[in-house]
Protein backbone atom coordinates (compact mmCIF):
# COMPACT_ATOMS: atom_id res chain seq x y z
CA UNK A 1 0.00 0.00 0.00
CA UNK A 2 1.37 3.37 -1.00
CA UNK A 3 1.82 5.89 1.80
CA UNK A 4 -0.83 8.24 0.44
CA UNK A 5 -3.30 5.30 0.23
CA UNK A 6 -2.51 4.43 3.84
CA UNK A 7 -3.10 8.00 5.00
CA UNK A 8 -6.32 8.08 3.00
CA UNK A 9 -7.56 4.84 4.60
CA UNK A 10 -6.89 5.90 8.21
CA UNK A 11 -8.60 9.23 7.64
CA UNK A 12 -11.73 7.58 6.34
CA UNK A 13 -14.60 5.98 8.15
CA UNK A 14 -16.48 3.49 6.04
CA UNK A 15 -20.01 2.49 6.97
CA UNK A 16 -21.91 -0.23 5.17
CA UNK A 17 -25.58 0.63 5.41
CA UNK A 18 -27.93 -2.23 6.34
CA UNK A 19 -30.04 -4.16 3.83
CA UNK A 20 -33.25 -2.73 5.26
CA UNK A 21 -33.28 0.82 6.55
CA UNK A 22 -36.22 0.95 8.93
CA UNK A 23 -37.20 1.37 12.55
CA UNK A 24 -36.20 -2.26 13.16
CA UNK A 25 -32.53 -2.70 13.93
CA UNK A 26 -30.94 0.69 14.30
CA UNK A 27 -27.45 -0.19 15.56
CA UNK A 28 -25.61 0.78 12.37
CA UNK A 29 -27.43 4.09 12.02
CA UNK A 30 -26.99 5.00 15.70
CA UNK A 31 -23.33 3.95 15.53
CA UNK A 32 -22.87 6.21 12.51
CA UNK A 33 -24.54 9.17 14.26
CA UNK A 34 -22.39 8.62 17.33
CA UNK A 35 -19.17 8.26 15.36
CA UNK A 36 -19.56 11.57 13.53
CA UNK A 37 -20.11 13.40 16.84
CA UNK A 38 -17.01 11.85 18.33
CA UNK A 39 -14.01 14.17 18.70
CA UNK A 40 -11.75 11.53 17.22
CA UNK A 41 -13.86 11.27 14.08
CA UNK A 42 -11.93 10.75 10.88
CA UNK A 43 -12.18 13.47 8.27
CA UNK A 44 -14.15 11.64 5.65
CA UNK A 45 -17.11 9.28 5.67
CA UNK A 46 -17.75 6.67 3.03
CA UNK A 47 -21.29 5.40 2.93
CA UNK A 48 -21.64 2.10 1.15
CA UNK A 49 -25.22 1.63 -0.06
CA UNK A 50 -24.58 -1.66 -1.86
CA UNK A 51 -26.50 -3.80 0.65
CA UNK A 52 -29.53 -1.51 0.82
CA UNK A 53 -32.47 -3.39 -0.64
CA UNK A 54 -35.47 -1.82 1.08
CA UNK A 55 -36.28 1.41 2.85
CA UNK A 56 -39.39 1.53 5.00
CA UNK A 57 -41.41 4.77 5.45
CA UNK A 58 -39.53 5.39 8.72
CA UNK A 59 -36.26 4.69 6.93
CA UNK A 60 -36.60 7.79 4.77
CA UNK A 61 -37.16 9.97 7.86
CA UNK A 62 -34.16 8.32 9.54
CA UNK A 63 -32.01 9.09 6.50
CA UNK A 64 -33.18 12.73 6.62
CA UNK A 65 -32.01 12.97 10.26
CA UNK A 66 -28.69 11.33 9.36
CA UNK A 67 -28.22 13.78 6.49
CA UNK A 68 -28.86 16.74 8.82
CA UNK A 69 -26.41 15.44 11.42
CA UNK A 70 -23.68 14.92 8.81
CA UNK A 71 -24.14 18.46 7.47
CA UNK A 72 -24.18 19.89 11.02
CA UNK A 73 -20.97 18.07 11.90
CA UNK A 74 -19.33 19.33 8.72
CA UNK A 75 -18.52 15.84 7.43
CA UNK A 76 -17.48 15.21 3.88
CA UNK A 77 -19.25 12.15 2.57
CA UNK A 78 -18.92 9.87 -0.39
CA UNK A 79 -21.93 7.70 -1.15
CA UNK A 80 -21.07 4.56 -3.06
CA UNK A 81 -23.07 1.96 -4.94
CA UNK A 82 -26.51 3.48 -4.63
CA UNK A 83 -29.02 1.49 -6.63
CA UNK A 84 -30.43 3.30 -9.63
CA UNK A 85 -34.04 3.13 -8.41
CA UNK A 86 -33.12 4.90 -5.15
CA UNK A 87 -31.23 7.75 -6.75
CA UNK A 88 -34.31 9.76 -7.67
CA UNK A 89 -35.67 9.89 -4.12
CA UNK A 90 -34.98 13.40 -2.77
CA UNK A 91 -33.32 12.41 0.52
CA UNK A 92 -30.98 10.02 -1.29
CA UNK A 93 -30.32 12.50 -4.08
CA UNK A 94 -29.38 14.96 -1.31
CA UNK A 95 -26.87 12.46 0.06
CA UNK A 96 -25.20 12.34 -3.35
CA UNK A 97 -24.80 16.14 -3.24
CA UNK A 98 -24.26 16.44 0.52
CA UNK A 99 -20.81 18.05 0.25
CA UNK A 100 -22.38 21.05 -1.48
CA UNK A 101 -24.31 21.91 1.71
CA UNK A 102 -22.23 24.07 4.02
CA UNK A 103 -25.23 24.87 6.23
CA UNK A 104 -28.40 22.96 7.05
CA UNK A 105 -30.89 23.33 4.22
CA UNK A 106 -34.59 23.73 5.08
CA UNK A 107 -36.02 20.35 6.13
CA UNK A 108 -38.55 20.29 3.31
CA UNK A 109 -35.67 19.59 0.95
CA UNK A 110 -36.22 15.92 1.87
CA UNK A 111 -40.03 15.98 1.55
CA UNK A 112 -41.47 13.59 -0.97
CA UNK A 113 -44.32 11.25 -1.62
CA UNK A 114 -44.97 8.29 -3.82
CA UNK A 115 -47.88 5.87 -3.99
CA UNK A 116 -46.96 4.31 -0.63
CA UNK A 117 -45.19 6.95 1.42
CA UNK A 118 -45.39 10.56 2.56
CA UNK A 119 -42.35 12.19 4.13
CA UNK A 120 -42.51 15.81 5.23
CA UNK A 121 -39.74 17.89 6.69
CA UNK A 122 -41.18 20.70 8.77
CA UNK A 123 -39.99 23.60 10.85
CA UNK A 124 -41.49 24.98 14.03
CA UNK A 125 -45.20 24.43 13.43
CA UNK A 126 -47.59 21.52 13.51
CA UNK A 127 -48.27 20.48 9.92
CA UNK A 128 -52.04 20.87 9.92
CA UNK A 129 -52.33 19.61 6.36
CA UNK A 130 -50.67 16.29 7.09
CA UNK A 131 -53.99 14.66 7.96
CA UNK A 132 -55.37 15.85 4.64
CA UNK A 133 -52.47 14.22 2.79
CA UNK A 134 -52.97 10.97 4.69
CA UNK A 135 -56.68 10.95 3.96
CA UNK A 136 -56.25 11.72 0.27
CA UNK A 137 -53.52 9.18 -0.27
CA UNK A 138 -54.56 6.27 1.91
CA UNK A 139 -58.34 6.38 2.28
CA UNK A 140 -58.54 3.61 -0.35
CA UNK A 141 -56.95 1.19 2.10
CA UNK A 142 -57.44 2.64 5.59
CA UNK A 143 -60.77 2.61 7.41
CA UNK A 144 -62.15 5.92 8.73
CA UNK A 145 -61.29 4.66 12.20
CA UNK A 146 -57.70 4.05 11.29
CA UNK A 147 -57.36 7.38 9.50
CA UNK A 148 -58.67 9.07 12.65
CA UNK A 149 -56.17 7.14 14.80
CA UNK A 150 -53.32 8.06 12.48
CA UNK A 151 -54.39 11.72 12.54
CA UNK A 152 -54.59 11.81 16.31
CA UNK A 153 -51.23 10.11 16.71
CA UNK A 154 -49.47 12.30 14.17
CA UNK A 155 -50.97 15.43 15.76
CA UNK A 156 -49.78 14.35 19.22
CA UNK A 157 -46.29 13.52 18.04
CA UNK A 158 -45.91 16.74 16.07
CA UNK A 159 -47.24 18.78 18.98
CA UNK A 160 -44.77 17.12 21.36
CA UNK A 161 -41.89 17.66 19.01
CA UNK A 162 -42.75 21.32 18.46
CA UNK A 163 -43.43 22.00 22.17
CA UNK A 164 -40.59 20.15 23.80
CA UNK A 165 -37.69 19.40 21.53
CA UNK A 166 -37.02 22.99 20.38
CA UNK A 167 -35.17 21.38 17.50
CA UNK A 168 -36.78 23.76 15.00
CA UNK A 169 -37.17 20.89 12.56
CA UNK A 170 -38.77 17.51 12.56
CA UNK A 171 -39.66 14.84 10.05
CA UNK A 172 -43.05 13.19 9.88
CA UNK A 173 -43.81 10.19 7.73
CA UNK A 174 -46.70 7.88 7.01
CA UNK A 175 -46.89 4.96 4.70
CA UNK A 176 -47.63 1.40 3.80
CA UNK A 177 -45.14 -1.34 4.50
CA UNK A 178 -46.11 -4.96 3.83
CA UNK A 179 -49.25 -5.55 5.90
CA UNK A 180 -48.76 -2.55 8.11
CA UNK A 181 -49.36 1.17 8.16
CA UNK A 182 -46.55 3.23 9.67
CA UNK A 183 -46.56 6.73 11.07
CA UNK A 184 -43.98 8.57 13.14
CA UNK A 185 -42.11 11.74 13.97
CA UNK A 186 -38.36 12.19 14.34
CA UNK A 187 -36.46 15.15 15.70
CA UNK A 188 -32.89 15.79 16.77
CA UNK A 189 -33.77 18.25 19.51
CA UNK A 190 -33.85 18.22 23.31
CA UNK A 191 -34.44 14.62 24.39
CA UNK A 192 -37.16 13.24 26.68
CA UNK A 193 -34.67 12.36 29.48
CA UNK A 194 -33.11 15.83 29.30
CA UNK A 195 -36.52 17.46 29.44
CA UNK A 196 -37.86 15.32 32.29
CA UNK A 197 -34.67 15.81 34.30
CA UNK A 198 -35.82 19.40 34.86
CA UNK A 199 -38.69 18.08 36.99
CA UNK A 200 -37.96 14.47 38.02
CA UNK A 201 -35.02 12.48 39.28
CA UNK A 202 -34.33 9.07 37.75
CA UNK A 203 -31.37 6.72 37.79
CA UNK A 204 -30.87 6.52 34.04
CA UNK A 205 -32.35 7.37 30.65
CA UNK A 206 -34.44 4.20 30.52
CA UNK A 207 -36.16 5.18 33.74
CA UNK A 208 -36.84 8.64 32.30
CA UNK A 209 -38.27 7.12 29.14
CA UNK A 210 -40.48 4.72 31.10
CA UNK A 211 -41.62 7.59 33.26
CA UNK A 212 -42.59 9.63 30.21
CA UNK A 213 -45.08 6.94 29.18
CA UNK A 214 -47.01 7.13 32.43
CA UNK A 215 -50.21 9.12 32.50
CA UNK A 216 -49.89 12.31 34.48
CA UNK A 217 -46.22 12.75 33.69
CA UNK A 218 -45.09 15.76 31.74
CA UNK A 219 -42.89 18.79 31.90
CA UNK A 220 -45.68 21.33 32.09
CA UNK A 221 -46.13 22.77 35.55
CA UNK A 222 -49.79 23.69 35.30
CA UNK A 223 -51.48 20.55 34.12
CA UNK A 224 -50.92 16.84 34.11
CA UNK A 225 -49.19 15.59 31.01
CA UNK A 226 -49.43 12.43 29.00
CA UNK A 227 -53.09 12.89 28.16
CA UNK A 228 -52.61 12.44 24.45
CA UNK A 229 -50.39 9.46 25.05
CA UNK A 230 -53.11 7.43 26.74
CA UNK A 231 -55.34 7.84 23.66
CA UNK A 232 -52.36 7.06 21.50
CA UNK A 233 -51.96 3.74 23.38
CA UNK A 234 -55.68 2.98 23.15
CA UNK A 235 -55.63 3.32 19.38
CA UNK A 236 -52.48 1.23 19.05
CA UNK A 237 -54.02 -1.48 21.23
CA UNK A 238 -57.15 -1.46 19.13
CA UNK A 239 -55.15 -2.02 15.96
CA UNK A 240 -52.64 -4.44 17.52
CA UNK A 241 -49.93 -1.95 16.74
CA UNK A 242 -46.42 -1.38 17.86
CA UNK A 243 -44.67 1.65 19.27
CA UNK A 244 -40.95 2.33 19.34
CA UNK A 245 -39.48 5.32 21.13
CA UNK A 246 -35.81 6.17 21.22
CA UNK A 247 -34.56 9.18 23.13
CA UNK A 248 -30.98 9.84 24.18
CA UNK A 249 -29.68 6.71 25.90
CA UNK A 250 -32.70 4.44 25.88
CA UNK A 251 -35.35 2.77 23.78
CA UNK A 252 -38.71 1.19 24.49
CA UNK A 253 -40.52 -1.05 22.07
CA UNK A 254 -44.12 -1.88 22.92
CA UNK A 255 -45.87 -4.64 21.02
CA UNK A 256 -49.59 -4.22 21.57
CA UNK A 257 -50.51 -7.52 19.89
CA UNK A 258 -48.65 -9.53 22.52
CA UNK A 259 -48.60 -6.94 25.34
CA UNK A 260 -44.86 -7.45 25.36
CA UNK A 261 -42.34 -4.66 25.84
CA UNK A 262 -38.66 -4.50 25.15
CA UNK A 263 -36.72 -1.86 27.04
CA UNK A 264 -33.01 -1.22 27.03
CA UNK A 265 -30.25 1.29 27.26
CA UNK A 266 -28.76 2.03 23.85
CA UNK A 267 -25.22 1.13 22.95
CA UNK A 268 -24.98 4.38 20.99
CA UNK A 269 -27.06 7.30 22.25
CA UNK A 270 -29.42 9.23 20.01
CA UNK A 271 -29.28 12.99 20.47
CA UNK A 272 -32.91 13.43 19.63
CA UNK A 273 -36.22 11.62 19.88
CA UNK A 274 -37.59 9.19 17.35
CA UNK A 275 -41.13 7.84 17.68
CA UNK A 276 -42.29 5.14 15.32
CA UNK A 277 -45.73 3.54 15.34
CA UNK A 278 -47.05 0.68 13.28
CA UNK A 279 -50.62 -0.55 12.75
CA UNK A 280 -51.41 -4.03 11.59
CA UNK A 281 -53.76 -3.73 8.61
CA UNK A 282 -54.89 -7.34 8.83
CA UNK A 283 -56.49 -6.90 12.24
CA UNK A 284 -60.24 -7.09 12.25
CA UNK A 285 -61.61 -5.00 15.04
CA UNK A 286 -64.06 -6.63 17.39
CA UNK A 287 -67.55 -5.21 17.20
Amino acid at each position, binding site marked *: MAFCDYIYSVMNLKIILPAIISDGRLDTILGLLSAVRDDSFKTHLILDWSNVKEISPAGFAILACVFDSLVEQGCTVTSKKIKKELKEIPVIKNFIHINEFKNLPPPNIHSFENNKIILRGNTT*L*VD*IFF*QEYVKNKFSFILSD*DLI*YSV*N*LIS*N*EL*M*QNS*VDHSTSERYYIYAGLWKNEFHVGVLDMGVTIPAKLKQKYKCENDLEYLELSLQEGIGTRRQRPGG*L*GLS*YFFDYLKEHKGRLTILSRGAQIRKYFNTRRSQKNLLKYPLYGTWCFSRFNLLVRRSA
Partner: protein
Amino acid sequence: MKKIIIKDIFDKDWVSREAGEKLRNIILDNAQDDKKNEKMEIDFKDMIIASTSFFDEAFAKLCENNWKLEDLEKKICFININPRDKKLLFDLFKRRLK
Protein backbone atom coordinates in the same frame (compact mmCIF):
# COMPACT_ATOMS: atom_id res chain seq x y z
CA MET B 1 -77.54 32.82 19.05
CA LYS B 2 -73.81 33.19 18.70
CA LYS B 3 -72.37 30.93 16.00
CA ILE B 4 -68.76 29.97 15.58
CA ILE B 5 -67.58 28.27 12.43
CA ILE B 6 -64.35 26.50 13.32
CA LYS B 7 -63.14 26.40 9.73
CA ASP B 8 -63.37 30.20 9.45
CA ILE B 9 -61.70 31.11 12.72
CA PHE B 10 -59.14 28.33 12.88
CA ASP B 11 -58.18 28.01 9.25
CA LYS B 12 -54.45 27.90 9.99
CA ASP B 13 -54.37 25.94 13.22
CA TRP B 14 -57.00 23.67 14.70
CA VAL B 15 -54.61 21.36 16.48
CA SER B 16 -52.51 23.25 19.01
CA ARG B 17 -53.12 24.27 22.62
CA GLU B 18 -52.90 27.91 21.55
CA ALA B 19 -55.81 27.46 19.13
CA GLY B 20 -57.79 25.62 21.81
CA GLU B 21 -57.18 28.40 24.30
CA LYS B 22 -58.42 30.94 21.78
CA LEU B 23 -61.68 29.02 21.38
CA ARG B 24 -62.11 28.64 25.16
CA ASN B 25 -61.74 32.39 25.60
CA ILE B 26 -64.39 32.99 22.94
CA ILE B 27 -66.72 30.54 24.71
CA LEU B 28 -66.16 32.15 28.11
CA ASP B 29 -66.56 35.68 26.76
CA ASN B 30 -69.80 34.68 25.10
CA ALA B 31 -71.11 32.95 28.23
CA GLN B 32 -70.35 36.05 30.26
CA ASP B 33 -72.05 38.43 27.80
CA ASP B 34 -75.04 36.22 27.22
CA LYS B 35 -77.93 37.69 29.17
CA LYS B 36 -80.57 35.46 27.55
CA ASN B 37 -78.78 32.23 28.35
CA GLU B 38 -78.84 31.27 24.69
CA LYS B 39 -76.98 28.24 23.40
CA MET B 40 -73.82 28.89 21.48
CA GLU B 41 -73.43 27.05 18.18
CA ILE B 42 -70.03 25.65 17.28
CA ASP B 43 -69.92 24.34 13.76
CA PHE B 44 -67.20 21.82 12.81
CA LYS B 45 -68.28 21.55 9.18
CA ASP B 46 -65.61 19.91 6.96
CA MET B 47 -63.25 19.57 9.89
CA ILE B 48 -61.77 16.63 11.71
CA ILE B 49 -59.81 17.86 14.69
CA ALA B 50 -58.26 14.66 16.15
CA SER B 51 -56.24 16.61 18.69
CA THR B 52 -56.34 16.06 22.43
CA SER B 53 -54.40 19.30 22.90
CA PHE B 54 -57.05 21.39 21.13
CA PHE B 55 -60.05 19.75 22.81
CA ASP B 56 -58.45 19.70 26.23
CA GLU B 57 -57.61 23.37 26.06
CA ALA B 58 -60.84 24.53 24.38
CA PHE B 59 -63.44 22.49 26.27
CA ALA B 60 -62.06 20.30 29.06
CA LYS B 61 -60.37 23.27 30.71
CA LEU B 62 -63.79 24.94 31.07
CA CYS B 63 -63.90 22.86 34.27
CA GLU B 64 -61.52 25.37 35.75
CA ASN B 65 -64.31 27.92 35.34
CA ASN B 66 -66.69 25.61 37.19
CA TRP B 67 -68.36 24.25 34.09
CA LYS B 68 -70.05 20.89 34.59
CA LEU B 69 -70.93 18.31 31.97
CA GLU B 70 -74.51 19.65 31.94
CA ASP B 71 -73.18 23.14 31.21
CA LEU B 72 -71.32 21.84 28.20
CA GLU B 73 -74.51 20.23 26.89
CA LYS B 74 -76.76 23.12 27.89
CA LYS B 75 -74.64 26.03 26.73
CA ILE B 76 -73.05 24.67 23.57
CA CYS B 77 -74.64 23.13 20.51
CA PHE B 78 -72.07 21.06 18.58
CA ILE B 79 -72.89 21.03 14.88
CA ASN B 80 -71.38 18.82 12.17
CA ILE B 81 -68.89 17.41 14.64
CA ASN B 82 -67.23 14.15 13.69
CA PRO B 83 -68.53 11.44 16.07
CA ARG B 84 -64.98 10.43 17.05
CA ASP B 85 -64.14 14.05 17.80
CA LYS B 86 -67.29 14.39 19.93
CA LYS B 87 -66.42 11.28 21.89
CA LEU B 88 -62.87 12.52 22.43
CA LEU B 89 -64.06 15.97 23.50
CA PHE B 90 -66.53 14.65 26.10
CA ASP B 91 -64.08 12.03 27.30
CA LEU B 92 -61.43 14.69 27.92
CA PHE B 93 -63.97 16.84 29.74
CA LYS B 94 -64.92 13.95 32.04
CA ARG B 95 -61.26 13.23 32.76
CA ARG B 96 -60.75 16.83 33.82
CA LEU B 97 -63.78 16.63 36.10
CA LYS B 98 -62.29 13.72 38.04
